[in-house]
């Protein structure tokens, strides 16, 4: 379940950055794209990786 959530969050960062193209100012676009990057990184590091670490083999050893 957490893996599915992580995938969706990571992909949503990409969608957010594409949505920035609807804006006209480069400053606003920059802010939205950086937000999209942060969301995608959170999806990878904060959700997906954490989901795998929860069952990591070295934690069981």
């Amino acid at each position, binding site marked *: 379940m957490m*893996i599915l959530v992580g*995938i969706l969050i*990571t*992909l*949503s*960062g*990409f*969608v*957010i*950055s*594409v949505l*920035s*193209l*609807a804006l006209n100012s*480069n*400053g606003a*676009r*920059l802010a939205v*794209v*950086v937000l*999209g*990057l942060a*969301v*995608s*990184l959170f*999806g*990878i*590091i904060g959700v*997906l*990786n954490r989901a*795998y*670490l929860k069952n*990591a*083999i*070295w*934690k069981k*050893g």
Partner: protein
Amino acid sequence: MKIATKTLLALTIGAFCCFAPFSFAQTPPATPAAAPKPITDADVAGAPVPSADTRAKGDPDGALTGTAGDIAVTDTKKGTTIGDLVNQVGQNKIAINFVWTLVTGFLVMFMQAGFAIVETGLCRAKNANHTMMMNFMVYGVGMLAYWLIGFAIQMGGVGAVANLGGTPPLSAEHVITVFGKPFGIFGQNGLFLVHRGTYDVAVMVLFLFQMVFMDTALTIVTGAAAERWKYAAFVISSFLMGAITYPLFANWAWGGGWLSSLGTNFNLGKGYSDFAGSGVVHAVGGVTALALAMMIGPRIGKYERSGKSNAILAHDIVIVLTGCFILAFGWFGFNPGSTLGASSNGGLRIGSIAVNTMLAGMAGSFGAMLYMWLRYNKPDASMTGNGLLAGLVAITAPSGFVNPVGSVIIGLIAGVLVCISVEFVDRVMHVDDPVGAISVHGTNGLWGVLSVGLFADGKSNYGGSWNGVNGAVTGLFYGDNGGQLVAQLIGIVTLVGFVFTLSFVFNLLIDWAVGQRVAAKSELEGLDLPEMGALGYPEFELKAEI
């Protein structure tokens, strides 16, 4: 004698002073130049050609070889015409570009050998055969996938590549409309290299060059998953990456897709600009490596229960550094070759692109060596090698757009960045990457893409425009309004958010279908016998870990 010499000298100077102005004054005024006489077919046909008897005596100094007699003639009755001459000039230009692109492509192909021995050297001896075989067969598996479908997806709609004489059969891009603008999504011509007229000399050159780039991206992944990746899973994963993941992003950046159109459609600089593939090749490989390494988990013994990371040492640092040199050599194909020609608008920048490449590699190795030396009191060899590669990866995107000072700064930052990234991936994320591929290619691939938006100096001129937008690629530090930086960042988020996700889902499906990871027993014994059936070093005495 001395007096005579002085007298003679004085007389000479005096004569010069007296007569020189007079002589100048007597120079007749320049007559208007005669109107240029048009060259006729008769002039061309009458150009001297060495006789057969003369040629039969040999040509030791080369003065008689390559003359008017070598120009292809369309009508032997008329002899050589101006039309023949002009066609020959055009063909020579394209021939130069073909040879340049092919030879640089051959250099990139040889990088596979560099990757193979870097990765194998950084792994343990008990996995040598398995690691070498992955690096060896990624070439064949990737090429098969790319020939079947990947090339068509990537380049099937690129349109005319002028430096290669035009590639008109590659003319069908699937386009959707987003925010009222056309978004190129994938190419449609070129399946099997015969589909819709793509059995074409220029298409063949383009295929070879793009194919070796694609294979570079694929081989990055084998390093991050080394020493525990099931060979069957590797074959399927590499096939999918060569067929779909890599070509899709490469289409968006290089094949006429939506990222390259961000300039024309949304006024974002010159659109996403990635000269030789920091993003297209290295970051695609790097984020896929991250997806797989997370999924597959660390090697047994890498982490203790407390989370403390243990170093698993390389078995042969000699071949690691030799491999780094082979890669640095191959990079002279990677970056300068991406002009796709030496005789073209901007083609002569191959010199500055090559110098930028070597400078950034040097700066990267220095940055990593100094970082490790200051932090751990020793100039770590494997990290210095990774620093060289990080500098080369980072300069790949900006190599055609920046000056030497920018190249050194980009390379230096890459050298330090790779060390910090390796520590972060290992100690914070607890993701096991035996060769540092995620940091070398992923982190520094993204840094290279970003650096275009900062350091591009606006001096490059590849025919007056880039990605269909007039002018040269210019970064924030050279007066751009930030549009180029935004275009680069959108490329970065596409890599992190979309390419990562696509790779992750593909590999998740493979994990469910055949399993990604070998059995613990096989891993402890070493993968050479269980997976490959033969040891890499049969005369070594290898012991299973406890």
